[in-house]
């Protein structure tokens, strides 16, 4: 708006406009309601101020009015609810073939890894017009990934993955904030999202890291840690064959069926007895404490790469405590 006094955040994603539309509607509605009430009060206050010779008129109430001003607001509220829910549903449903970026939050920085292998700290480069899905976890306390220009925010939790997604529409540099208080340098845990034209992004990508893609790093770890001894690519292994499992239902020993998503892979590495696959024994060693967050990310990326589509685009299975 004004150069020195900005009053509205930049609008730089496909979702931002939707959020702003509802916000403006609510601003107008609230403004109207406030005005109506304030005007009524002012008018009543002046018109019915105490005057000698006029007593107040005792009015018990009016059931008709009460019902009206209960039902009408409720109706309006339901409209707002539905509108907000619709936007939320879009925000929580990443497109199927979104590119993925893994995010590890820690006190007090953001570590981001592109699947191609580029690592960034406190910066995220993305191309305009591409769906980007963030798969995030924390190494310590709860953080929150917040990009006001995209109108997205998602808490980042230790011990699980949470996701968010966006499609940037305008090249530029936008704030990235941590939005869940996390200790001393909470307000210093900020960064930038750099949205680039596709060509520029390709250039940036190819000037990128020599550390290999996430999946190939994951494959190395998979061999180093001995996973390959049990999880063979045939049916003779003591552990299930991991080819093609990602995104598909898995039958468990106790009769449950779960979907093999990022959280499932992660849990199976850190706490294997939680969900034992039907037909197998609970003999997988526990890797809690033996793998870092980054290594976990790479292992997950590797297992995903063993399935038909590299980014399956399924919703990460959400929390146990709902």
């Amino acid at each position, binding site marked *: 708006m004004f150069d020195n006094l900005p009053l*509205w*955040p930049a609008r730089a994603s496909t979702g931002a406009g939707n*959020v702003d539309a509802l*916000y403006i509607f*609510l601003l107008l*509605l*609230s403004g109207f*309601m*406030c005005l109506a*009430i304030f005007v009524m*009060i002012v008018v*009543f206050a002046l018109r*019915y*101020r*105490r005057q000698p010779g006029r*007593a*107040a*008129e*005792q*009015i*018990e*109430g*009016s059931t008709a009015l*009460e019902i009206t*001003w*209960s039902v009408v607001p*409720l109706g309006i*509220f*339901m409209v*707002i*609810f539905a509108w*907000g829910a619709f936007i*939320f549903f879009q925000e929580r449903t990443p497109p199927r073939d979104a590119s993925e970026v893994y995010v590890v939050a820690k006190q007090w920085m953001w570590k981001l890894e592109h699947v191609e292998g580029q690592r960034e700290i406190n910066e995220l480069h993305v191309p305009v017009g591409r769906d980007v899905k963030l798969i995030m976890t924390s190494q*310590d*306390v*709860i953080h929150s990934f*917040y990009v*006001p*220009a995209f109108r997205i*925010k998602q*808490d980042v*939790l*230790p*011990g*699980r993955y949470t996701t968010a997604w966006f499609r940037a529409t305008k090249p530029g540099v936008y*704030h990235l904030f*941590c*939005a*869940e*208080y*996390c*200790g001393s340098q*909470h*307000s*210093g845990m*900020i960064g930038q999202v750099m949205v680039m034209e596709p060509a520029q992004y390709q250039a940036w990508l190819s000037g990128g890291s020599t550390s290999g893609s996430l999946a190939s790093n994951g494959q190395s770890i998979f061999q180093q840690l001995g996973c390959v001894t049990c999880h063979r690519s045939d049916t003779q292994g003591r552990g299930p064959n991991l080819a093609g499992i990602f995104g598909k239902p898995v039958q468990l020993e106790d009769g449950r069926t779960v979907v093999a998503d990022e959280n499932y892979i992660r849990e199976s590495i850190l706490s294997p007895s939680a969900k034992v696959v039907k037909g197998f024994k609970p003999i997988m060693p526990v890797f809690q404490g033996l793998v870092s967050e980054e290594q976990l990310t790479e292992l997950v990326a590797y297992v995903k790469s063993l399935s038909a589509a590299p980014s399956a685009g399924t919703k990460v299975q*959400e*929390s146990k*405590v*709902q």
Partner: protein
Amino acid sequence: MATAVITPERENYLNQEYGIKSWLLTVDHKRIALLYLVSITFFFFIGGFFALLIRLELLTPAGDLVQADTYNKLFTMHGQVMIFFFLIPSIPAVLGNFLVPLMIGAKDLAFPRINLLSWYLYIIAGVLMLHCICTGGVDTGWTFYTPFSTAFSNTKVVEAGVAIFIAGFSSILTGLNFVVTIHRMRAPGMTWSRLPLFIWAHYATSIIQLLGTPVLAITLLLVVFERLFHLGIFDPTRGGDPLLFQHLFWFYSHPAVYIMILPAMAVESEVVACFTRKRIFGYHFVAMSSIAIAVFGFLVWAHHMFVAGISLYSALIFSALSYLVAVPSAIKVFNWTATMYKGSITFTTPMLYAFGFIGLFTMGGLTGLFLAALGIDVHVTDTYFIIAHFHYIMVGGAVMGYLGGLHFWWPKISGRMYPEWLGKFAALIVFLGFNLTFFPQFILGYMGMPRRYWQYPPEFQVLNVLSTAGSTILAVGYVLPMVYFLWSMRYGKIADDNPWGAAGLEWQTTSPPPTFNFDVPPVVTWEAYNYDQIPAPAEEVSVER
């Protein structure tokens, strides 16, 4: 018109007995109310001092007044002190304690000694909190989120947790006292539908205090145990779940906000009725909406957790329920406004606070509609939009209600009038200062400034400077009443028994009341707010200086 007539002072609850023991060992609900008044005022200024430091730091984008850790402690303790040691007790412990027995025609609350115990628990909690503040403080945010509070913070989490735990029991016992009193000690003829709306709202508040506070108590206890004994109930590295903490915490802390606002709505009803000289429009609807707020208030807690990692479906349910809880509040606002229609309105200080309350509560409540909308909440949660929202309701609403109530019942409590022109002036300052402080924060929030930020990007500075300027004005507005209320106890005009010509049993006894409230226990044969039967005061009270 009684002025300073030379008669021996009538015996009342203030002069019946003198000496520190008669105060510290009193079981008179009115004296206990004054004990609370002094204590919560003390904590209000402590919390306010922290707020001023916060606002001063936020004058500049850089963190240059205090260190980051200090700042984190400041906003944590501002929240804890203001919520647990000021807002939650405020109206119920001061005005409720004083007025509930009077309004229903009883001699005291059902359990006077438990009432005194409540105050002592509050003081013990307060002393512990002060000790915590002075020996290092706590920096977890008032919300104590795990695993930061259980496994990462290096501050006095246990001490603060125990202090709030104890304060919680003070709150529970007050609520228990009120519910039993209202059920069992009403005067003959005082049926439920003749009760002042003040009583209905305090009844609803007490139900919340009884049912919700114990959950906070156990949650804080588990956090304390986890910290002390290295358990893992909320720690994911040890099999626990941080979201379990959040659910347990918010299960109390959302209803807690209704503990804070319902009593202010209680005051609002009494003040509006008196200064429009009319029965509140839609009495039964207003009474029932208090109960509805209490009930629905327990069903919406996870709207504080929309981005915390709950499922899409949970979020949908809690969003829908949150809209439901907005309806009874809207009903009240409409009814108060309708009461003014064809009334006979005078603009005394309490009435000015009442006008301010409706305006600011409406604004705060409307912004609640924004927050209940899932798509919007994702963007503005954990930003200054939330801060602005809850300050509009808790400060613009609850504190204005508290101040309005103090002014309204001051003659009854002290037997003196406060200086009316100063009262009006302070009300105006509070209203202006408040809006300047918190309105810019809505804009800051939508722009994306997160909360609990010690330093911030420079484009947010102008709005922060406006907000800080407002806070200094607000501070003046708060200091003024303290000064002139104290002044009035010695030099204020002696008050009539019913200077406002108000309805309600409390106005039918002397100002101040005798220790046992009524010389003759009343028998009630009239409806509440019988303003058609009560003559208005002969002259405008505002004329008095």
